[in-house]
């Protein structure tokens, strides 16, 4: 089987400091990979390199495009990369404000990606927006409200709807549950899990919340100081951590 995403020896430096280095992995269609690690361990740097927001200093990222098979996304032209960014890829930011247009209604936010790929029928765009708002549990009567009028959890769900409306194959998530209270987190995770299974999405989830990866991720990658220190199946890594840092991480989780 062809991997959806192939990452080889990605490295990103900020001057003399290491952002992340020597990261390699394959992601297969339908697979969800979690990246965990403490703050400053290079998780977000890695994610931004993969999603094309940052240019890595070394390494290759290949994506299985619909038309031409595996293509190097770092050397492909910017228009092609941006096209991927609004069709086959989705990026869910930690702060919904970074991923939403706060002065545009919820419907407009969801419709933007459709219009960006040349949808020009208002009725159809709106119907699609209503459908997607429903899927992320936002009622139809909120469609013309701006995201500023939404709660944090709703904003995050709106951001997810906005990203998934064009049927992407790969979703990058940067701490999707960060800053939400636990009950809202639980609902969001439920929703995400449903969507990932239903749409057979591949996803890369960066988080420092081990509960999130336990629920969502098939595989886990633990990072520290820019290096990958442990990889494996989620349950395997969390239940039988080998590296001292992973052991520390797992044992640091507060028990209620």
């Amino acid at each position, binding site marked *: 089987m062809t991997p959806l995403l192939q990452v080889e020896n990605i490295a990103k430096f900020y001057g003399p400091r290491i952002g992340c280095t020597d990261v390699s992995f394959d992601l297969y269609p339908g697979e969800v990979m979690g990246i965990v690690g403490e703050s400053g361990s290079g998780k977000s740097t890695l994610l931004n390199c993969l999603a094309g927001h940052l240019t890595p200093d070394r390494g290759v990222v290949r994506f299985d495009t619909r038309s031409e098979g595996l293509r190097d996304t770092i050397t492909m032209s*910017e*228009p092609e990369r*941006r096209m991927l960014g*609004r069709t086959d890829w989705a990026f869910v930011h930690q702060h919904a404000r970074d991923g939403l*247009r706060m002065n*545009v*209604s919820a*419907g*407009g936010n969801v*419709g*933007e*990606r459709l*219009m*960006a*790929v*040349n949808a*020009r*029928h*208002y*009725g159809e*765009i*709106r119907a699609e927006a209503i459908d997607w708002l429903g899927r992320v549990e936002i009622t139809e009567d909120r*469609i*013309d409200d701006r995201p500023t009028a939404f709660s944090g959890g709703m904003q995050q769900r709106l951001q997810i709807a906005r990203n998934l409306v064009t049927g992407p194959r790969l979703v990058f998530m940067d701490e999707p549950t960060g800053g939400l209270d636990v009950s809202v987190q639980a609902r969001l995770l439920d929703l995400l899990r449903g969507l990932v299974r239903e749409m057979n999405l591949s996803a890369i989830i960066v988080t420092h919340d081990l509960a999130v990866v336990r629920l969502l991720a098939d595989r886990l990658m633990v990072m520290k100081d820019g290096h990958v220190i442990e990889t494996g199946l989620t349950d395997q890594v969390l239940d039988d951590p080998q590296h001292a840092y992973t052991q520390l991480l797992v044992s640091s989780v507060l028990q209620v």
Partner: protein
Amino acid sequence: MSDYNFAYLDEQTKRMIRRAILKGLAIPGYQVPFASREMPMPYGWGTGGVQVSAAVLTPDDTFKVIDQGADDTTNAVSIRRFFQKTAGVAVTEATSQASVIQTRHRIPEEDLRADQILVYQVPIPEPLRFLEPSEVETRKMHALEEYGLMHVKLYEDISQHGDIATAYAYPVKVEGRYVMDPSPIPKFDNPKLEMAGIQLFGAGREQRIYAIPPYTQVVSLDFDDYPFQPTKADHACDLCGAQDSYLDELIVDDEGGRMFMCSDTDYCATRRKQGHVGAQGVPYAEDAA
């Protein structure tokens, strides 16, 4: 003639502006940056248009200035006098006699000819500005032809007002490539953007010049199920009776009295001279005094 260089600006500046104009004509709808000069008038009064006019005027030209369709408002009168004084060119109020027409917010009702130039004053040249505040990003969007965002604005209009409520500065796509702000002309004028004359757009504060060459395709953006519709007040001109011109509404007393009249004063006066009289109008000769 006067103590000024012809048409106020020095020759090097005019040369720089002409180069920007030529580039604009070569890439219809593309915003060409230029080194806008300080003009002896405040920003927002047409400093961009004045610089473009100064660069294209020749001593043989006949100059006309329109402000919201009218030839006799403060803005129009001062710009006209400015070029009378600094260029010594002939001026006129008649659209058909002018060779260079500087305009703000309107296109003349009368069709322009191939030997005429229409110069627009533009406040904000970037059609994507209110949706995307970053200039870096909007330039990239133009370069990569990513115009989905423009439709988000129209979507918002329909979702809030039930129809495309944008009535002026209605975005257009020029020659199938660049999305352009046609300056704040009413969308009634949008179909006239495909014309025989040369159209030049100057934004002084924003330092941009762009252009539409003659007979260039200009398409107003819309949705399949909400097609573009040029609109005007559903009325005839009360002075000249014209059914097809863009109208201003004027409140005439405090008892609900109102009248509609052509916003293009030259068009209205010409029709009245020809003997057309509207519902509240009087024959031309009597009210001329």
